[in-house]
């Protein structure tokens, strides 16, 4: 029986999204499944963005706090360190300090941090709120305005607050992350609502909600695969924005990245375990369709970069 390789091509294509001004990065743009270069085009590699915060990362476990111990007291130094010393291609600034349960920093405080960081680095910036519905709706429009023209990514717009955030991102010429909760229909619905406001679908990034390995990754994985198939096979235009996986935040709060080897000898070295957990969560979600990854540990990032290099060699 002769063998004919059962290759498949698709009608649909993921939108390419370009961010930044002085230095630009593009992700998305493919017309095939993740890394399926043998049967389609993937013009851009997945992009990894280094996560930093507006306040010192007190709740990050030691393994991932340590690489930043000299710089993490100051977001500007931290951002520069990522760009200069780690070769970051993009930086994600999470305004976690604005959360009412954290420092409850004001929108003005946030604007200052964002402006300072923008002035200090050239690589594209992703600006995230604290994931507090009301506070994000208050803070994100102000920072969007303050970073106008810098072609950043603003996030995350959710069902309960998308209107103000999307309007601000639109007015200031930014890209926007739309996050829903692990459900393809909710995700589609939110993208539709946002585009109905006049926000171009080509400027959206879908966040179907991340989960860490061992803590629901199978849900994220399958929702991402389904969204990607809808984009490619059904060529559904509202499902065609690229997807983000907010990996670091979910990984570095679980027990596997924190419990010491003394307490759980059967889990082995904590350092390797933590780094691996972040890297493996990231590659797994890339295989499901994520093109933009937000990560924390430099060693995890370089492992994932090696994986991407090999895939694109």
């Amino acid at each position: 029986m002769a063998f004919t390789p059962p290759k498949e091509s698709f009608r649909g294509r993921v939108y390419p999204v370009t961010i930044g001004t002085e230095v630009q990065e593009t992700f998305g743009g493919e017309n095939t499944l993740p890394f399926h270069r043998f049967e389609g085009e993937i013009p851009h590699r997945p992009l990894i963005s280094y996560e930093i915060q507006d306040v010192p990362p007190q709740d990050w476990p030691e393994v991932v706090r340590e690489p930043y111990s000299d710089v993490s007291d100051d977001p500007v130094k931290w951002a520069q360190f990522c760009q200069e010393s780690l070769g970051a291609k993009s930086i994600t600034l999470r305004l976690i300090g604005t959360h009412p349960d954290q420092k409850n920093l004001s929108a003005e405080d946030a604007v200052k941090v964002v402006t300072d960081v923008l002035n200090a680095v050239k690589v594209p910036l992703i600006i995230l709120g604290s994931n507090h519905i009301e506070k994000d709706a208050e803070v994100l429009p102000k920072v969007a305005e303050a970073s106008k023209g810098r072609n950043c990514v603003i996030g995350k717009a959710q069902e309960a607050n998308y209107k103000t955030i999307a309007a601000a991102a639109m007015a200031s010429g930014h890209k926007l992350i739309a996050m829903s909760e692990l459900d393809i229909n909710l995700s589609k619905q939110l993208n539709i609502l946002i585009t109905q406001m006049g926000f171009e679908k080509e400027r959206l990034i879908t966040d179907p909600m991340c989960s860490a390995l061992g803590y629901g990754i199978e849900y994220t994985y399958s929702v991402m695969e389904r969204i990607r198939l809808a984009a490619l096979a059904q060529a559904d235009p509202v499902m065609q924005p690229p997807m983000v996986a907010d990996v670091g935040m979910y990984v570095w709060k679980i027990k596997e990245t924190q419990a010491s080897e003394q307490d759980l000898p059967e889990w082995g070295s904590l350092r390797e375990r933590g780094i691996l957990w972040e890297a493996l969560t990231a590659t797994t979600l890339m295989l499901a369709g994520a093109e933009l990854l937000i990560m924390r540990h430099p060693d995890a990032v370089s492992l994932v970069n090696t994986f991407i290099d090999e895939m694109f060699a």
Partner: protein
Amino acid sequence: MALTGVEIFKLLPKTNCKKCGFPTCLAFAMKLAQRQTSLDKCPDVSEEAKRILGEAAAPPVRPITLGTGDKAVKMGEETVLFRHEKKFVNPTVLALEIKDTEDEAVQMEKVQAVLTSEINRVGQLLRVDAICITNASGEVERFETLAKTVAEKAPEVPVIVSTESPDAAKTVMGLFSGKGALLYGVTEANAEQMVPIAKEAKASVGVRADDLEALSALTEKVKSLGVEDIVVDSGARKAPEILEHNTLIRRAAIKKNFKPLGYPVINFVQREDPLYETLLAGLGICKYASVVVMSSAEKWKNLALFTLRQNIYTDPQVPMQVEQKIYKIGEPDENSPLLITTNFSLTYFIVSGEVENSKVPAWLAVMDCEGLSVLTAWAAGKFTGAKIANFIKESGIESQIKHRELIIPGYVAILKGAIEEKLEGWTVTVGPREANGLPSFLRQKVAA
């Protein structure tokens, strides 16, 4: 790939004799296509039709078992390309390679690593499933020494024997005869000598070719030599080829019913850096490998891969769940605290683990919420005041404890009033939100 009703109809006698219990051959064919009846109901069907229909009904990826006894593992039988369509069936076998060129001490360490790799995660016992012994030296004697060590120290662990030398295979396979071993290293060049050796040892055959075309031809050849339990290696070693070949093999089997590639796939992912190697093993787990062969088995690496494999191979329709009942943690008595949670496996194991950590004996009431987490169950209306009250009353716990205090998860603090209303004489105490707050919470509670 299953045949359609019309395709089946063409193979039937077309006499409409009704002996099968259906009014027409076509009606019978339709039911067959839906797998609602079986072919043997028609007494007049031809041998030819039986053969064709039998082949079409066989699973697209051949089921093969590696090893025997308690530690045997199944491979193949997959039916889909994406896990949201249907559960992936047989989890990827993780195998640790031991080479005959390695120091004896290293070899022993590896055997030991496999034997002690078992971890309990979310109620499942997970382990490195198999040992792959590799004839890297090319010498028969060294290989035999290694094989003897493994056969003696790890007699129950399924074995993959990796060599391209018929001499080495012949010498070693006797040690694993009847133990469901896999003889890997069969190629176009050595198939005539190797296949009979595998057959004699009742082993399956692992074939390697340099591309998919050659691989298809090779499996046909092995089959014609009398062995059908085959595991295939396309020669892919780099990530993009592993992804490409595994995908094309799975597609050919499932979508085209292409029998020459309808076999479990084996991937070799050994790399210098064990961290990086894990990422490639992860690629194999996500993308259709039935066996992944690795060069090391560090504990942290095992934990990550066991977890990924468990996640990818869970049923997408049915979350993993535990039985509804009142669990005892430690040796609780009539004064011990009573906590409640849902029966989602992950939730149960996290919470029971933390209660254990607290060293405070306790009663843990686990309520059936169809395997949903606390917040999901609450949002879905399955973890409500009325239902909790009902469950507590019917559980019989009231006869086992003297107090009437129920500790609920912090995230559902809002349920306090509703439960107290329905559960007369009880007080509800709101516990911490995250389970890791439980040890200090419980210790304070019993100290007070």
